[in-house]
């Protein structure tokens, strides 16, 4: 038997004292989490500005003269890649994963804190390499975020000189960073839980992050390999992905490669990536709803199994991104079926969220507002996903604004709503102060209504056939005048929504100093992170004694309880009926721990 107690107390003795070891070269998961989040938000702001510039060009063509065709494609590429990988993946797993996993499962830190620190610094390096591509000759790559060869590595695509090389290098570095972090998260959840913390007592946040991380460990290798191969194609002239091509009358030195292979590898990563971003959001929203509606989550077990089912299924649907790439119809049939099957566990989750709210004591706090908007937005984007999952519907809609609207709703806006909700929810624990409520309300309503103003009309644009990825629509006859007006309106909405995010950032920094002092457990939540002896939690999280878990994380509105909730580390109370709330109450594990004391 391995003595984990020793490993932990050993770690406790090494509390850092200097500023550098405490806040910069920190091995504390909480500091690393904040470092991850701030870096992700900083690079995310770059992507936000890029989206403004793109919208300016689309809404008011030619208004900003420095946006030429090349610049537009570069903005689109960088916006997509930054948002998906460097913001969402990093903030959900590196940020919330780092902060919440050890606190929620009752550990003192990640199992290998040094590796965890390394993960952040390598991630920062990836961000720096990515940012560097803005300053090299030719600028960043404009190949589109999917980086499809052959065009991404051939002359004529902006950023062909250096941008694509830096982009691929940065991705490879990011994957190294993610692997170091991800191994830590998975091992911590599997092997370093507190006494009494069974897997089926973990808050759904931990489940979501756990499954997403595991998926990342299996999906990122495909991006790693395709990135290395594409890099070799570009730098030393191999022909993995490039067939024979005649460019301007001259045959290129390439020949015999398979562009479709890249698409398969990319989407074998790319589709699970959607769920790597979505599953942590699923988990967090379940917890936010339960806390702020003062009610246990409906169908906890089903929620866990649905997460797992989504995780597994998402590995066998990737080619639905390739219906128009040229594929055997039988494969199209297979991938359409698997895609539609994913709707089943997803629907289970949505029903369970709604049933959690049914007849609940809903507190319209800011995190709750964001959670409710997540459900709406996710259902909205998910339904259009059912359209696009069918081959016959996808073919005409492919590469139109309908697709843009779909994926922004389902994996852009919806997870970002949860990022905000989670920040409003956990900010008091992280900083010891509350975020300003009124500013939060304004931020929420502008963002929520604004995103609908942006993306709802895009479905219409898609139906009238406005193609995506175009720099300008001036010369295209079939696009009606109304589409141009709509584009201008969307741009105005996008600028307003963007400005609201600045208000959010202002709130984050303002509240750090002037925010209302937060109590240890402002939302009266049951999960372990709210039961720490100090707020914000000190190094080692739990003081002298590790918490002992006696129940699941969803004992809200318990009849007979002094307050309306029972924290996870509260032993069974006399008024509780056996097996009333905890699906594990009948298991011997609890009883034995009682007698074990």
């Amino acid at each position, binding site marked *: *038997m*391995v003595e*984990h*107690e020793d*490993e932990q107390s050993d770690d406790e003795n090494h509390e850092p004292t200097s500023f550098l070891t405490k806040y910069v070269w920190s091995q504390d998961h909480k500091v690393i989490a904040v470092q991850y989040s701030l870096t992700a938000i900083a690079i995310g702001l770059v992507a936000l500005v890029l989206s403004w510039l793109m919208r300016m060009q689309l809404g008011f063509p030619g208004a900003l003269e420095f946006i030429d065709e090349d610049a537009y494609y570069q903005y689109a590429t960088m916006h997509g890649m930054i948002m998906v990988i460097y913001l969402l993946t990093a903030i959900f797993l590196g940020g919330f994963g780092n902060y919440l996993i050890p606190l929620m499962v009752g550990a003192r830190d990640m*199992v*290998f804190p040094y590796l965890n620190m390394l993960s952040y610094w390598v991630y920062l390096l990836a961000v720096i390499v990515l940012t560097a591509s803005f300053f090299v000759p030719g600028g960043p790559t404009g190949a589109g975020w999917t980086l499809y060869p052959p065009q991404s590595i051939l002359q004529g695509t902006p950023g062909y000189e250096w941008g694509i090389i830096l982009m691929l290098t940065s991705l490879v570095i990011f994957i190294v960073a993610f*692997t170091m972090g*991800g*191994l*830590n998260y*998975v*091992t911590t959840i*599997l*092997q*370093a*839980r*507190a*006494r*009494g*913390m*069974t*897997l*089926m*007592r973990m808050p759904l946040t931990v489940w979501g992050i756990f499954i997403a991380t595991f998926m990342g*460990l*299996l*999906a*990122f*290798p*495909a991006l*790693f*390999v*395709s990135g*290395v*191969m594409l890099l*070799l194609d570009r730098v*030393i*002239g*191999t*022909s*993995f992905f490039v067939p*024979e091509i005649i460019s301007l009358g001259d045959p290129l*030195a390439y*020949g*015999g*490669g*398979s562009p479709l*292979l890249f698409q*398969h*590898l990319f989407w*074998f990563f790319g589709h699970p990536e959607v769920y790597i971003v979505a599953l942590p959001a699923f988990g967090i929203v379940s917890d936010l709803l339960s806390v702020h509606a003062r009610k246990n989550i409906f169908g906890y077990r089903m929620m866990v199994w649905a997460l797992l089912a989504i995780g597994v299924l998402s590995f066998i649907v990737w080619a639905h991104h390739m219906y128009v790439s040229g594929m055997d119809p039988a494969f199209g049939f297979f991938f359409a079926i698997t895609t539609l099957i994913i709707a089943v566990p997803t629907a289970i989750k949505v029903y369970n969220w709604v049933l959690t709210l049914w007849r609940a004591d809903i507190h319209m706090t800011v995190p709750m507002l964001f959670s409710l908007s997540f459900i709406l937005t996710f259902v909205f984007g998910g339904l259009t996903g059912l359209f696009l999952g069918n081959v016959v519907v996808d073919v005409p809609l492919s590469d139109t604004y309908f697709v843009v609207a779909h994926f922004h709703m389902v994996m852009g806006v919806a997870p970002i709503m949860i990022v905000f909700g989670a920040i409003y929810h956990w900010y008091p624990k992280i900083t010891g102060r509350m975020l300003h409520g009124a500013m939060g309300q304004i931020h929420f309503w502008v963002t929520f209504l604004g995103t609908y103003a942006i993306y709802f009309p895009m479905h219409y644009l898609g139906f009238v056939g406005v193609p995506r990825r175009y720099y300008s629509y001036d010369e295209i006859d079939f696009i009606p005048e109304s589409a141009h007006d709509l584009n201008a309106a969307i741009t105005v909405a996008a600028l307003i929504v963007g400005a609201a995010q600045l208000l959010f950032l202002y709130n984050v920094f303002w509240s750090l100093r002037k925010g209302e002092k937060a109590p240890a457990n402002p939302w009266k939540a049951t999960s372990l992170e709210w039961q720490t002896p100090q707020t914000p939690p000190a190094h080692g999280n739990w003081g002298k004694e590790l918490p002992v*878990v006696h129940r699941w994380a969803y004992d809200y509105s318990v009849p007979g309880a002094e307050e309306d909730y029972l924290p996870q580390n509260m032993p069974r109370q006399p008024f509780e009926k056996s097996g009333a709330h905890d699906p*594990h109450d009948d*298991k*011997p*594990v609890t009883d*034995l*721990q009682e007698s*074990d004391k």
Partner: protein
Amino acid sequence: MGQKSVESASGNPDNAGAVDQLVADWSSDREAFKGVSWGKSMMWIFLLSDTFVFGTFLTGYMTVRMSTTVAWPNPSEVFALTIGGTELPLILIAIMTFVLISSSGTMAMAVNMGYQRKPKQAAYLMLATAVLGAMFVSMQVFEWTKLIHEGVRPWANPFGAPQFGSTFFMITGFHGLHVTAGVIYLTVVATKVLKGHYEKSGDYQVVEITGLYWHFVDLVWVFIFAFFYLW
């Protein structure tokens, strides 16, 4: 410790079936893998991830091999050595494979010695493993040199499809990096074992963790060997 109580709670492990035990382990608290250290479980998970890396490499290789328009060279001829006037197909690769598989043997013996708390023997066997690994890498260097002299490049190949050169250098290179990393890893751990770093705790599981990585690298080689040289 709390773990003991949980285990006894799930019934007598001797009587319980393997499935029952598995269910009991996964539905218990603290650890899903009972008695497995953090380092060891993390190594297993890393290897699972690395499996996907090599799996993708090999899948890519197979796809490229099928999609290329020029005929694929015959590996038996390309990888033949002329020794004493006779051409022996795949002779070098046979020796390399033999060396690497033997190194798995010495590694397994090192793990055994570690658990018997014979640090000296364990360390020397690990160093022997490292030497065999280094031999493997040097033979690979020889093979690369020979092919490069014959005109094979990652972007060109006088024997047929250029993708032959691309995939060969990429996949064997990536595997060679893994072996090289393993040699360094083995040397570091063996030195620590020799210095008595683990004597205080008496826990030599680190030898097994190193061994897991090493066996994995060997296993990957078996697949590369089969797919690249025998196909």
